[in-house]
């Protein structure tokens, strides 16, 4: 089983490299991460944390936007595009199951994301540490950022496959992916903010709010990084929500999503007639 998934993954990886996607994604991550690191270097003194911590805090915010975006951009074509090109019928005429096919795509895409994240955040973090100092805590925060970013990416890859399986064409899948990104990354938070304002420090704000927030994988990612590092929490000002939740909630949410979404993607993929 894994042999056939690897065959798919190897091919997909070659495509990612060949069409410059890997290079572009890595460059984007690197440039943004570096820019934020240096733009954010001002408050170091006032908060009493090192530059790497500040950098990780800015990169956390960056990753909330970029990781889902990059993941969805890779994933939306995986099924709908393959059906459209007629390639899926041919691939499925071979003794490879739909699950193996999906797993192969996922492995390649995840590897590409992991590569871009590690190089991007790793380099920016390294530069920050070199110029502004670092300690074990801030290095741990950097490592956590990279790993959780990859997990967040995995989650949106899976959501992208789901959308791709539900769409009749790659164009539709692209549109739906954009909508998904907007909902999870922008609208969800806006909605929560609105609810908090209306609620005026009532039950919702005090009790429900952090939980509802943690359901969204993008927010769970943010909460996890903030809650786990005091320095990062200080610099992002998200301490309130993060501290009211038990520490396992955000990690559980972020780790459950990819599994759940992959399962759903596989289920919808099963109904696709190539």
């Amino acid at each position: 089983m894994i042999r056939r998934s690897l065959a798919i993954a190897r091919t997909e990886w070659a495509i990612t490299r060949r069409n410059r996607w890997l290079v572009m994604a890595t460059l984007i991550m690197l440039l943004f991460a570096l820019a934020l690191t240096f733009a954010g270097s001002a408050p170091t003194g006032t908060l009493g944390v090192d530059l790497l911590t500040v950098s990780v805090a800015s990169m956390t915010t960056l990753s909330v936007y970029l990781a889902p975006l990059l993941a969805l951009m890779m994933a939306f074509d995986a099924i709908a595009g393959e059906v459209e090109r007629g390639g899926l019928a041919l691939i499925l005429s071979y003794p490879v199951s739909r699950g193996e096919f999906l797993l192969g795509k996922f492995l390649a895409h995840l590897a590409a994301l992991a590569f871009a994240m590690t190089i991007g955040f790793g380099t920016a973090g390294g530069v920050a540490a070199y110029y502004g100092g670092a300690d074990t805590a801030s290095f741990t925060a950097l490592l956590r950022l990279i790993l959780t970013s990859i997990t967040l990416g995995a989650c949106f890859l899976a959501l992208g496959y789901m959308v791709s399986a539900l769409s009749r064409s790659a164009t539709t899948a692209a549109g739906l992916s954009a909508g998904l990104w907007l909902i999870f990354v922008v609208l969800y938070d806006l909605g929560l903010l609105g609810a908090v304002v209306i609620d005026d420090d009532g039950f919702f704000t005090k009790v429900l709010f952090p939980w509802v927030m943690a359901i969204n994988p993008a927010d769970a990612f943010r909460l996890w990084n903030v809650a786990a590092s005091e320095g990062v929490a200080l610099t992002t000002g998200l301490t309130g929500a993060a501290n009211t939740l038990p520490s396992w909630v955000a990690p559980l949410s972020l780790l459950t999503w990819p599994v759940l979404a992959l399962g759903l993607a596989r289920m919808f993929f099963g109904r696709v007639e190539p």
Partner: protein
Amino acid sequence: MDEVLSISHAGKSRGSLRVLEDISISVEAGQRIALLGHNGAGKTTLMKAILGLTPLGDGQITVAGHTPGSAPARTTTAYLPESVAFHVALTGREVLRMFAQLSGVKPADVSPLLDRVGLAHAADNRVGTYSKGMRQRLGLAQVLLGRPKLALLDEPTSGLDPISRHELYAVIDEMAAHGTAVLIASHTLTEVEARTDRIAILRQGKLVANDTLANLTRRAHLPIRLRVRAAPDCAADIAHETAGARVNGMHVEMLCAPDDKMAALRQLSAMGDKVADIDMHLPGLEELYRHYATGEDG
């Protein structure tokens, strides 16, 4: 009898449309069957049903005794889709290597195949730079992977020039000689005539013919067309006597059954000088195909 593909009473609906209706075909090892029919007749649908990619409504299909879509059925079946679009960023060799890995053939086996379909020189170029015919050849190369028991070729000649077509049929013959049962979907009888053992024709999802060309020709009983050029002012006479139709001032056209051919000719020659010339048009493959595929004559 070594039956590789068995289709019995296969039927399928899409919405209110009956895309396959009570189709029964059996194909033995080494047989080449042409599957003909108009656009939308159901050829591709039938192939996808054989591959287990689309479910059947009624009836059943077995591939070498296995359920369509099951692992053993897929291992024994090769498929060439009607429009193959391999990823443009990959090279021909990479595409083929992936399929080889999926089918369990060793990667070392790929080069001779590329050579076999005449792609050796372009093996390491991207598919994006291939011509339509070259892509079709790449598609054919993957069909040859791992000696399938059954090959389903959906319009394999589309985009091929006459010489490439010839080569394609040589490849098909070779596969058949090795015992592969080959099902070839096509639009033209002319093309598959000499290259297939049996011809199956679909009309709006129904199997309207499934026999050898000789038997189909005999059974169709298509009329022979006689075109008679009349001497000046004699066209009306000839038309009257033979019950033929006047085409213009000079010609009369008449249809006669194959068995009545000599009688008609005798009648015409008895008219002496009135008849200036006779053209005899025997029903061709196009007419034969049209007879079965549309249900109308001539």
